């Protein structure tokens, strides 16, 4: 039976809600039209594939199963030890491969020289061998390069095979849905004559699966991105940080959604003094500079946690609570923008003929809000989630650096950068922690920005299709 932390539950139910929303949108022509423009854009679809890959890792990292200390799934009812996510379970080898301190990516020896005692009693000033990285090599100087390239090639082959399987299935399904033969469909797709940019999607998938193949082959015996200060695997850390980043990027907007939706609709629909009060509320909140409000709220939250120490027994629940609190606090500073948008849109919608008709026909107010106003606001919510996502991921890093972000024990890119900020001053330079955080963040934020641009363009009333 999976063990779920509060953020897991929220995240998974948010995804469920998203799926429901997608199904609803697909069946409504007027809602579907702008999304079709997004789907036609090549850069948006490439970005979407990459974002979905990130999302998949985040989901795998949000489903926790209790395991016994020796790494097997525990069948008895009482779990021993902390529950482990599906992602940890898949990465078992990397997680356990601890070193003592820094080592460069793919290295077999440590980063710094140490005094080691030889079997014959002499003390030698040399680079010690790693405990995990390349331990299967008998003669590292000679075999290292050969072993690396052999593994890289086999990784490429595995990645390609996996890709061929997935793309083959996709072609099968798509061709049968269009009732055309497979060769004809592939030809169309390759020439870029299909409605959706299938060629770009397939090539993006190819790139992802090749990288995944090579990395997974290499990570069986090496630290692909080196190890950090206390010998932890940087690649594992970067992968675990994905969940934190994605969660903050999405949950923040979604967690305060009920508030923004209720207040926005009420202000727009009822106008008058309700509108005044709600406008006053969000103008006040909006006047406090964001960082300062976040800092103040996080300080208060920390002292709340200190007071109720007993309720946060394990490290995981503590870190999880803090992550959730950060999402809520970040949401507190950003819901005002969404609320203002929703209010303006409701003001517009309530004057439309179909709403007036419903009112004349005697439909109750609650029903009008629920059936006629709410569904027509949801595109605004999706746009604002898309637009806010990248800046929230970036904000997490900055806040963690200022110590008002996620718990120090939570893996996050901000914490990685924070831990690595003195490493650039070392001789020789330890660059891989920073570089990994950079690459992983960039590969998430850039597609998010591109996708958000496509969404904004599609919904912009000033440039119709």
């Amino acid at each position: 039976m999976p063990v779920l932390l509060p953020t897991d539950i929220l995240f998974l139910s948010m995804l469920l809600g998203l799926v429901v929303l997608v199904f609803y949108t697909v069946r409504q022509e007027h809602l579907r039209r702008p999304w079709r423009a997004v789907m036609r854009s090549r850069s948006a679809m490439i970005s979407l594939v990459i974002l979905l890959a990130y999302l998949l890792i985040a989901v795998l990292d949000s489903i926790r199963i209790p395991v016994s200390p020796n790494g097997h799934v525990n069948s008895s009812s009482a779990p021993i030890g902390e529950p482990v996510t599906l992602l940890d379970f898949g990465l078992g080898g990397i997680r356990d491969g601890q070193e003592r301190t820094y080592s460069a990516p793919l290295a077999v020896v440590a980063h710094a020289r140490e005094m080691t005692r030889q079997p014959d009693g002499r003390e030698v000033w040399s680079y010690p061998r790693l405990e995990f990285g390349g331990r299967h090599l008998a003669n590292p100087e000679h075999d290292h390069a050969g072993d690396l390239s052999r593994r890289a090639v086999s990784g490429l082959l595995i990645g390609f095979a996996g890709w061929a399987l997935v793309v083959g299935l996709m072609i099968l399904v798509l061709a049968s849905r269009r009732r055309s033969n497979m060769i004809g469909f592939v030809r169309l797709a390759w020439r870029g004559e299909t409605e959706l940019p299938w060629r770009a999607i397939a090539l993006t998938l190819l790139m992802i699966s090749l990288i995944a193949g090579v990395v997974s082959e290499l990570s069986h015996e090496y630290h692909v991105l080196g190890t950090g200060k206390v010998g932890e695997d940087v690649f594992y850390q970067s992968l675990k940080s994905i969940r934190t980043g994605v969660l903050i990027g999405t949950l923040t907007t979604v967690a305060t959604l009920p508030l923004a939706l209720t207040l926005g609709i009420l202000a727009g629909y009822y106008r008058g003094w309700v509108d005044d009060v709600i406008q006053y509320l969000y103008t006040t909140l909006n006047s406090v500079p964001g960082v300062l409000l976040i800092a103040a709220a996080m300080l208060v939250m920390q002292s709340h946690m200190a007071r109720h120490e007993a309720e946060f027994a394990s490290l995981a629940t503590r870190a999880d609570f803090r992550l959730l609190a950060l999402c809520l606090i970040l949401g507190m500073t950003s819901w005002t923008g969404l609320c203002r948008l929703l209010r303006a849109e409701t003001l517009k919608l309530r004057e439309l003929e179909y709403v007036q008709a419903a009112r004349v026909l005697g439909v109750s107010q609650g029903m009008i809000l629920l059936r006629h106003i709410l569904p027509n606001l949801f595109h605004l919510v999706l746009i604002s989630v898309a637009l806010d996502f990248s800046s929230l991921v970036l904000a997490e890093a900055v806040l963690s650096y200022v110590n008002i972000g996620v718990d120090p024990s939570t893996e996050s890119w901000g914490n990685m950068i924070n831990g690595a900020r003195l490493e650039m001053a070392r001789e020789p330079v330890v660059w891989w922690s920073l570089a990994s955080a950079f690459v992983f963040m960039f590969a998430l934020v850039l597609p998010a920005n591109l996708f958000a641009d496509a969404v904004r363009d599609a919904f912009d009333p000033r440039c119709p299709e």
Partner: protein
Amino acid sequence: MIDYVVRRLLYALPLLIGINLLTFVLFFVVNTPEDMARMQLGQKHVTAEAIDKWRHERGYDQPLFWNAKGEGADRLTQTIFYQKSLGLFLFRFGRSDAGRDIGADIGQRMWPSLAIAIPSLLVGLAVHIGLALLLVFFRLTYLEFWGVALCVALMSISTLFYIIGGQFVIGKLLQLTPISGYDGGWNAVRFTILPVVIGTVAGLGSGVRWYRTLFLEEVEKDYVRTARAKGLSEARVLFSHVLKNAMIPILTGVVVVLPLLFTGSLITESFFAIPGLGSYTIDAINQQDFAIVRSMVFLGSVLYIVGLLLTDISYTLADPRVKLN
């Protein structure tokens, strides 16, 4: 005009009261003075006497709103709300939890903040607007496409990487400027160069993209076509006609941040060890000095509201068509 300003000031009053109440609730109701004392004195092994002493020294031992023990006006004035929160309206910040005079600290620390923030703003504006105009000049070419793509890529990099990378390349490898630190007088110039350069580069992506959309909106208008028809060069059209008319949206963005320049930037100042208000706030957060954070939240909000007011006034100065009423 004066009428309008007075009306806007009166309108700002309820906002300020709201912010004051918000900070009060956050710092004294959600989080009681006893929690603060506990946090400062260490969580465990803290005696009730030590907490009482800490609270008494800092004046946190009074009731929140209503002092039943007092007489006459004292019932209202001998309370935390009156002493700690209402004083903020008169910029009486009181003492920090560590016993320092916050008002004096702010007066002293705003200068280094300004020394970094003003050049950053000016250089950033000039560079971003210049590059955006160049992109518009080359519109509908490959140069524009790749320029915009580069902007999106630059936007996707965290500020932290710009700072760490800039310090590494300019400060450590090339040794052109000191990596961090600050000095008074003219020596300060040496220390401001690196933060200003990095600040400008870090804002390049979003800045250039934003100004480009502003200019693109102007560039399709009739007066631009007229100017071109009269035979003016494209560069002349862009740099004098379009730039002037795009001033209003640019002003909106700039004037609103002007008052906030005083409070400096949290990240930049802490990375470059600049003794300004930004690093003051960061230090307060790390030391969990609630009094300083509370003062800075209020000060920041006041400055933001002043900025909004200034924006509206600057409209009338920049565009004679705008009438305030």
